């Protein structure tokens, strides 16, 4: 754009205005969609969070009571921390596996690479509910594949979903499995974009594989990582269908992730105030952590329009 402006400085104002109109037109569908189906419902949720509402009797304004109730509920704070812990277990591992996958796919022959790319995407096709059911059966105590494998390795069988120490960890597997396809493909896309000549010259300088990754691949893929980190974080901390199907939040709340707690309140409470207020507080948590990640990994392109 700016080349053109430099060439014809007098036309600048006109071009800008024309560009502004066009920009508005092209943005209109997205902005309308987000306004009607995201921002407007959000505004109404915020409004509702100050009321006691059971749908059949009049709304009663209760001020900050719903928020106070949520913050005063130790289960909510615990579930948010648990959600962050779950994210910390899932996202780095997912990125690591995706990175390994992309590295392998990049370096094997084209046939094998094609097969890999196709396979990795396939689990994405399965719905979360079905995947959870598959893993419930895999994690069965006797007769489950997981304990069969553990037995082959000579270890004791585990109550993967019945033991509070294991349940959340057991859930990382289906979570990673479902999300791996897209993460890997995007990772591979970024990796294939790094010019081969960079590696060639690094090899001439005697840099090994690990050094090549640290000094060439990682810096050049910063934006890919940022994108995958942010989307991985927001998706994973919101996960609730997997614990809902596999354990309904137990045993002893060990898999009660924040969205599952909110969903439970939404389903069973007589008033929706608590669940709406809790959901807004969760938004605040996710929003501020994401903003922090953006800032830490400060990427010019990502933060500046």
């Amino acid at each position, binding site marked *: 754009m700016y080349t*053109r402006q430099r060439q014809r400085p007098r036309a600048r104002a006109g071009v800008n205005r024309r560009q502004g109109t066009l920009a508005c037109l092209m943005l209109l569908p*997205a902005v309308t969609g987000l306004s009607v189906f995201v921002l407007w419902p959000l505004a109404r949720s915020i409004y509702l969070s100050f009321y006691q509402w059971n749908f059949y009797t009049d709304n009663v304004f209760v001020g900050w009571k719903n928020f106070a109730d949520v913050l005063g509920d130790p289960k909510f704070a615990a579930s948010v921390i648990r959600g962050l812990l779950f994210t910390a277990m899932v996202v780095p591992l997912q990125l690591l596996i995706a990175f390994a996958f992309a590295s392998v796919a990049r370096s094997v022959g084209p046939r094998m690479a094609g097969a890999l790319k196709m396979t990795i995407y*396939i689990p994405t096709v399965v*719905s979360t509910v079905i995947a959870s059911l598959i893993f419930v059966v895999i994690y069965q105590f006797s007769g489950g594949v997981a304990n069969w494998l553990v037995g082959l390795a000579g270890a004791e069988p585990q109550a993967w979903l019945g033991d509070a120490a294991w349940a959340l960890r057991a859930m990382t597997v289906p979570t990673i*499995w479902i999300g791996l396809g897209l993460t890997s493909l995007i990772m591979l896309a970024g990796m294939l974009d790094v010019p081969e000549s960079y590696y060639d010259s690094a090899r001439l300088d005697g840099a090994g594989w690990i050094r090549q990754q640290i000094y060439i691949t990682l810096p050049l893929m910063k*934006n890919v990582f940022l*994108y995958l980190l942010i989307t991985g974080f927001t998706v994973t901390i919101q996960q609730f269908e997997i614990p809902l199907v596999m354990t309904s939040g137990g045993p002893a709340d060990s898999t009660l992730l924040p969205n599952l707690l909110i969903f439970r309140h939404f389903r069973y409470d007589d008033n929706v105030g608590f669940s709406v207020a809790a959901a807004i507080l969760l938004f605040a948590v996710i929003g501020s952590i994401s903003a922090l990640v953006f800032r830490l990994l400060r990427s010019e392109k990502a933060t500046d329009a």
Partner: protein
Amino acid sequence: MAATSWSRAVKPRKWALSGSKTAVACLFIVATLFPLVWMGLSGFKAKNEVTRTPFRFLPEVWLWENYLQVLQDPAFVRAMAFTLLASTLFALGSLVVNSMAAYVFARLEFPFKRAIWAVVISTMFIPSMTILLTSFLVVNELRMVNTIWVLVLPGMASASQIFFIRQFYLGIPTAIEEAALIDGAGPFRVFAHVFVPMSKGIFVVSGMTMFLAMWNSYVWPVLTITESDLTVIQQFLALFRGARSTEYGLLMAGSTLALIPVLIIFFAFQRQIVQGARLSGFK
């Protein structure tokens, strides 16, 4: 041909290295596909054989009944067709809407751009649970409940997809469009004639993501669709999970059958996904 030139460069140690890499690749494939293969096989098992102790990988007797029963159910076929339609509309619509927005944010200048971008990006972090109920109230007021639009329209504009496509557009060198601009083409023509043709790969990835999001959605259709003619596939499958017994055989058979159209679409676009990966300007 990054892969081939690489392997040419490492001729020494070639066998051991390429052998171990192939082994790792095979491990990836087996680990990833195992649950799915197992699901498909479970569709051939008798009602409670799936959860029987001890674990058996293959069915004791190969039963076709589950697959046949699902296939012969007109509700299954209808749910598949309807979900296919809704998912296709959703994916195509989202590509149009989000790619235009992505282009605008990547290339055009207009007032309040940064503020609008900040608002758009912030919607990415709104948990679906925060607006589940109020979104339902909105679509109900718009009289969209029990129509296809309640599935297609609400999630179509997506901040994460705008962000995703915009990252790609930012990586396209400005030199590419300068020629068109000097020829007097307006920004929209630049978008339509320069950017869109270059976006095949990224569109396939973004489109597939959105398609699958719709195909696999359950919580939202459960709220908004009551009409049995407009039941989506995940609602249909949920009926095999009764309160008192899960029909594992039927559920697994149904889930396997539900994969097939998606896999066909996936394989049809497979080359684009592979090529698209290479075109990506995700720098």
